[in-house]
């Protein structure tokens, strides 16, 4: 079984649009949407949810007001500013560490499992899909990402599918780290801008830090061919395979509005290039 994870560093480079097209092009695959804080893949793949499960991401402290004497020791000891001036817990700040539970002389505080979101096993016309919704303002997205990657792997095994295609999130922090560790191949989608170039360097360093193989594609390359060339040169100098230049194409937005992958939305220049890109990625995965 192989896993392809699509990340970008910079937001808005076209990861989800590309992954949606890969869904239509691949065979024997399972789709995974690891952008759990702002998931969009379902908007194009139109999944039918077969199972939904609660996700308990961490814990939160609850103070029993009957036992609380407002001594303030919990506030002193909390490093996350999660106890307000009235000795009430601020759930948005609480990390569920238990320091307050430990220190409270009245044993007035307990930790409870915190319902942080939901994850889903779904079906689409292209492949089964595993996705999730992290609750508003919840943290521990990394754990949820790891959970759904694991579930996708189990599902693939059960159904004899041998490819996971994973849509990642922007940035280089915990949900991205959780989505790339152990992957067979990372595809970094870059935009040809100074910002995109800057972010590429950081996300490429991240893949090296976690020892995962990465390949690169530039999306909307014709916006700035000079920087596209710089990206290609950077790849050459840093042991990253540069795979493709995808042109800016209004078909991408039109396909999105029609809720279809762009490769399933008639002929377009970008669709042709995406098909070639997928072919290259597939060959690399199957080496």
């Amino acid at each position, binding site marked *: 079984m192989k896993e392809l994870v699509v990340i*970008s*560093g*910079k*937001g*808005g*480079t076209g990861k*989800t649009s590309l992954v949606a097209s890969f869904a239509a092009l691949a065979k024997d695959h399972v789709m995974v949407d690891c952008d*759990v*804080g*702002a998931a*969009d893949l379902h*908007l194009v793949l139109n999944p039918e949810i077969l199972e939904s499960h609660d996700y308990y991401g*961490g*814990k939160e402290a609850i103070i029993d007001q009957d036992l609380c004497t407002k001594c303030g020791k919990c506030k002193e*000891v909390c*490093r*996350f500013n999660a106890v307000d001036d009235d000795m009430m817990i601020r759930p*948005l700040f609480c*990390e*569920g*560490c*238990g*320091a307050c539970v*430990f*220190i409270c002389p009245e044993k007035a505080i307990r*930790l409870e499992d915190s319902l942080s979101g939901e994850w889903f096993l779904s079906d689409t016309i292209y492949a089964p899909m595993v996705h999730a919704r*992290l609750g*508003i*303002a*919840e*943290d*521990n*997205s*990394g754990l949820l990402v790891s959970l759904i990657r694991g579930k996708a792997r189990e599902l693939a095994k059960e159904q004899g599918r041998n490819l996971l295609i994973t849509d990642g*999130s*922007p*940035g*280089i*922090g*915990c949900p991205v*780290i959780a989505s790339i560790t152990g992957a067979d191949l990372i595809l970094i989608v870059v*935009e*040809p*801008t*100074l*910002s*995109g170039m*800057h*972010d590429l360097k*950081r*996300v490429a*360093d*991240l893949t090296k830090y976690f020892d995962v193989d990465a390949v690169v594609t530039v999306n909307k390359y014709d*916006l*700035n061919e000079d*920087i596209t060339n710089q990206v290609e040169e950077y790849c050459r100098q840093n042991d990253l395979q540069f795979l493709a230049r995808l042109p800016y194409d209004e078909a991408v*937005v039109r396909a*999105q*509005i029609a*809720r279809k992958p762009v490769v399933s939305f008639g002929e377009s220049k970008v669709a042709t290039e995406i098909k070639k890109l997928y072919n290259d990625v597939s060959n690399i995965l199957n080496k």
Partner: protein
Amino acid sequence: MKITLASGKGGTGKTTIATNLAYLLSKDKEITLLDCDVEEPNAHIFIKPTWTDSYTTYLPIPKVDMDKCIHCGICGDSCQFSAIANIGDKVLTYPELCHGCGLCMMACPTGAITEQNREIGTVELGHSGNIKMAHGKLRIGEAMSPPLINAVKKHASEDGITIIDAPPGTSCPVIATIQESDFIILVTEPTPFGLNDLKLAVGMVREIGVPMAVAINRSDLGDNAVKEYCEEEGITVILEIPNLRKAAQNYSKGHLIVKEMPELEKHFSGIMASIEKELSK
């Protein structure tokens, strides 16, 4: 006053609006710009500050004195993050998992645990004209951005205007950034992804309870659904920037679009007045 640019979706134009707004406002007053997208900071590309100072920020992680350790296992049992464990006669720590809560240190009956530092990242300070800038750069491989974001936020202006560029999304780095903002501008694009993520971001801002408005970037790109949503929800659209290839090209080169295309200034001109109006509601 702290004005934060946030979004659900990445790549909608937070940094574009933050930097161009900061530049325009700085023409007649001192402005502070904080780039809290510590994972992928980009504001400096457009502001081009002269850097004057930098310092490293750390998270405290446990250090175990094995001479004092009695192998009771309380540290491992207490830790909610599996960052410390007593296995046989060894105490293993997993610094990358540690949240720096200090519980193991408090819980250890023999005082065997003290703290050492794990590097989270660097804060850099600089200026360009009337703009004072600070940003953070998360150490590659570090999972936790909020402590670094909080360090950057300490450089907010006491009494002037601070513009804060947030990371994309709705999870904990964004929450850490938008806390204590006076006003939030949610930046979106008029596409299905843009609308979907805008709804999540609106839910997030309502949870925090800060006044907000929406900015629609590349406003003639997709369909009308975002505008209709804002109308239904009673959210003011405070700024619209059209989808102009020339603006995108300027952006790609690291230029401030209002500098290269002064005709775009008019889109920004009413923002502060609109924000004051929203705040007075």
